[in-house]
């Protein structure tokens, strides 16, 4: 008996297959009955990682999956000490992303790897990101940029704006967190400039912009792209106007959107806001990525100033500060026929899925879009 018990305790497959003490009925299960039997709800919104691969068709080779990790804000305290909370968030995203099976085609890093743009922070972030088993496409954020105006980033990582094609989709990466030269030049030191940009509710802040130089480059880059080619733009800050006091904003958003107007299928993916946020403006779908470090309130919570938080957005669940990873996470995105399905991997929460609805013409939350389906934690006030 003891030998059998030991055998069973060893490898997994052994215990299941050859345990002589009982006959295990191994049924060939259909996917449907498996879903019924398992404790996991069959609703698409709660698909665990392992089942994701089944639901998305792999028949069309133009369908592909990529991951999005953003806003880690690694903060250097002293010596080799970094803020433990934020380190943990990025490490968790990297670990879980490595579990993806099948592997994503690439991982996008959405900006704000560092908190105060320090070399220690960027190096620390690069070290953690190097543990990823997949290639990375980088987008710069203002917390990375404003200490040295992107110098170390360009040295260690790459260009601040660029484009690439992947399986029939044209990707454009922008540096959308630039601002007026007069603001950049007025500070006594780079550190002062950086800490003023770092403070979200800074009354002496300055609005983000893409700038005419990049817009010119975009026009030229996109002139070679046909109307039917799906276009995905990735920037750190949202390329539309949500809330100026917190720089959920791009001053020249209309100009950028005008450049994208002629394309049939355009999606803008961005970070910066640390919350679930999505909108449709004309032909462009906008979707925010979560932060791995901490959540931000919705601008509706600041009653002293008016806001333009899109009504379309079904808000994320309110954060419980006891669990540091609550209201943080990362995303798995699937490109299907030029449209994005965004599976938010929400830590300590049920995942959410945004899918572009062809009939309605905008992205919707697959479980909670209808007001009658909303739950109390989504009420932010």
């Amino acid at each position, binding site marked *: 008996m003891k030998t059998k018990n030991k055998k069973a305790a060893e490898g997994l497959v052994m215990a299941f297959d050859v345990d002589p003490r009982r006959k295990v009925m*191994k049924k060939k299960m259909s996917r449907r009955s498996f879903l019924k039997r398992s404790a996991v709800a069959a609703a698409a919104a709660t698909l665990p990682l392992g089942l994701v691969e089944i639901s998305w068709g792999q028949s069309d080779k133009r369908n592909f999956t990529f991951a999005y990790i953003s806003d880690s804000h690694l903060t250097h305290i002293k010596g080799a000490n970094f803020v433990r909370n934020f380190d943990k968030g990025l490490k968790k995203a990297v670990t879980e992303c490595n579990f993806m099976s099948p592997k994503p085609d690439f991982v996008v890093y959405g900006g704000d790897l560092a908190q105060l743009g320090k070399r220690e922070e960027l190096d620390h972030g690069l070290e953690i990101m190097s543990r990823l088993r997949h290639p990375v496409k980088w987008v710069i954020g203002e917390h990375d940029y404003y200490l040295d105006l992107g110098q170390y980033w360009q040295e260690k990582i790459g260009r601040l704006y660029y484009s690439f094609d992947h399986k029939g989709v044209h990707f454009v990466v922008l540096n959308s967190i630039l601002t007026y030269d007069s603001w950049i030049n007025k500070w006594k030191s780079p550190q002062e400039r950086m800490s003023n940009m770092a403070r979200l509710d800074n009354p002496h802040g300055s609005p983000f912009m893409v700038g005419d130089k990049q817009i010119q480059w975009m026009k030229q880059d996109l002139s070679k792209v046909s109307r039917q080619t799906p276009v995905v733009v990735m920037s750190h800050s949202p390329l539309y106007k949500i809330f100026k006091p917190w720089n959920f904003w791009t001053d020249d958003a209309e100009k950028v959107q005008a450049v994208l107007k002629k394309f049939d299928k355009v999606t803008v993916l961005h970070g910066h806001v640390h919350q679930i946020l999505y909108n449709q403006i004309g032909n462009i779908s906008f979707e925010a990525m979560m932060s791995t470090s901490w959540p931000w309130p919705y601008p509706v919570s600041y009653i002293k100033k008016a806001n333009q938080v899109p009504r379309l957005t079904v808000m994320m669940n309110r954060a419980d500060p006891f669990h540091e990873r609550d209201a943080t996470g990362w995303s798995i995105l699937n490109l299907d026929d030029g449209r994005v399905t965004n599976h938010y991997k929400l830590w300590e929460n049920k995942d959410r899925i945004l899918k572009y609805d062809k009939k309605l013409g905008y992205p919707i939350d697959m479980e909670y879009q209808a007001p009658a389906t909303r739950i109390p934690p989504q009420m932010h006030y």
Partner: protein
Amino acid sequence: MKGFGMIVATVAVSLCFSTCLGWAGQVLPLGLPPVPVPGDNPQGPEKIALGKKLFMDERFSADGTISCSTCHIQKKAFTDGLPIAKGIKGLEGTRNSPTVVNAAYYKEQFWDGRVASLEEQAKGPFVNPVEHGLKDFKPIIEIIKKDPDYPSMFRKAFGIEPQGITIDHVVKAIASFERTVISGDSPFDRYMYGRQKSAMSEAAIRGLQVFRTKGRCQDCHRIEQTSATFTDNKYHNLGVGFSLVEPELFDIVEKVKKAKKAGIELDGSILGSKKVSELGRFVVTLDLEDIGRFKTPTLRNVAVTGPYMHDGSIETLEEVIDLYDQGGEDNPMLDSGIRPLRLTDQEKADLVEFLKALTSPEYENKK
């Protein structure tokens, strides 16, 4: 003013009425909320007595030596005092026997919450090879039918004749009994809800404050304004035992996913394989975030229900607090509420005193 006083009095009385009474006839111990009772299994004295008898019956096992009370001994606060439970022929499983006391308040049963009721939980051990070791439930039903007392007890409890008795009746009765195995009225309850300042020692009172603030115990081990179950009914990864699976984590996860797709039965594999067991709730939900997660147990009677953790690997309360103080066992899936605490020796000692104050009078000195 008089009218207002009447209203206050009425409200107070009705509040008292609803919080103090569970089902008709049972008075709730101090500090406990009402016991959840499912609609299809109402409480009743005959059912409870039947459940207790079934709970103690050793014939419901392959060699006639194991009953529920073998691992859930009333004198030991319904545990067995062992790190890992031992079933027929001394076969060891992989997990520590949880106490039945106040298990009625869990939304799901077992360390990984793989079943949603006390009724369902009772079925598992009967047919688990390392517990009661039966192949199926038939022997149980046969014994019941032939027993001199059971048929009339079932008739009285369910209004059912012997030929109609199924395993569902058996587990319903057991669950009904378990719903009476509740305890409160500990020194903490008398201090907190009975407003008796002298019910807890000074050290325990300081320990309660640590519990709520620096110790970060509150939130998973919940105390609430009018009652305390000391559980959030959620699952968390402390990293205990995780080092066993961490080196081969990716491979084991893939194997479990494949096995589950092929329909492998849960109960046997969890208690049959240490590595599967260490994956915790993941085996139930296949959600990667659930890797290494186990249910928050109640802390009521914790001083007399050791050893601790899902694998019984920690012997003393002091060592448990040291584990939390260091921030658990670090691993990639560590719960985000767990972190180093930097408690002073005084705070640790006070916490232990507080935990000791959670023992109900009927389980005091039962070790």
